[in-house]
């Protein structure tokens, strides 16, 4: 009797559920691992300078400040990718750091912000290691490559991202 009751707990349906749950989570892991690797491979195939996208659409406000700042950040060992935009004297950048350096990513972003502020006087600089800011700036950069943004639109985008950064702080 007791033996039978034990079997219903470990019955076939429960084992399958357990295995299914494990399989689901492992597949999540591997799938996302695959996608992130893909992105890295693609970036490295495009060349060492291509993980910083250069915005060169002539009708949108000039992004040369951003491009210069990105070059500087690129020289840091811990940084794997940079995205950013600037409008007038407001600059916002997002960095991706190596996994092991994510323990100290907040210190790093403060240090980089100070460095950039010293180099570019009079410019409001924001550096963020937050994944969300990176995603948003990445989306924005992709749009900037294809469509024109006038000053007002870009300022609005900048304000939205700045609000996100200030929210988390």
């Amino acid at each position, binding site marked *: 009797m007791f033996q039978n009751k034990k079997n219903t707990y470990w019955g076939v349906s429960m084992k399958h559920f357990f295995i299914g749950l494990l399989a689901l989570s492992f597949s*999540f*892991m591997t799938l996302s691992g695959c996608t992130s690797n893909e992105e890295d491979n693609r970036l490295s195939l495009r060349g060492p300078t291509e993980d910083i996208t250069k915005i060169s659409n002539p009708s949108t406000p000039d992004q040369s400040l951003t491009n210069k700042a990105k070059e500087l950040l690129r020289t840091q060992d811990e940084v794997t990718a940079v995205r950013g935009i600037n409008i007038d004297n407001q600059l916002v950048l997002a960095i991706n750091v190596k*996994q092991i350096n994510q*323990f*100290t990513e*907040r210190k790093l972003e403060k240090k980089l912000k100070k460095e950039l502020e010293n180099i570019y006087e009079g410019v409001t600089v924001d550096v963020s290691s937050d994944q969300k800011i990176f995603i948003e700036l990445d989306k924005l950069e992709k749009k900037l490559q294809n469509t024109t943004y006038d000053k007002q639109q870009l300022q609005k985008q900048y304000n939205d991202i700045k609000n996100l950064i200030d929210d988390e702080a």
Partner: protein
Amino acid sequence: MVFLWAFLIGGLICVIGQIMFDVFKLSPGHTLSTLVVVGAILGGLGIYDNLIDFAGAGATVPITSFGNSLVGGAMDEAEQHGLIGVVTGMFKMTSSGITSAIIFGMIGALLFKPKG
């Protein structure tokens, strides 16, 4: 990558809980309360936020993050409003967990029948 570390760190915290169950023979109430206090201490030291950056959900899902959020909320408010902020800001960041537990508990009681 962050998925791998979420799995490892989350699993590690659960193993610590399991050791408290099996080796130290603590009840679930004791274990969870201890883990919350540990989370609060690590949050106070500033270590737990770095762990969240590293492991993502591996650090925010276990109950230890509850303790970290409590301290985080209290400290944020205290920085702005002084000592009284410790009391006023405590549940700022943890309201999600407790509120959803209460709401879904009530919805569960309304919808589901107790099983023998």
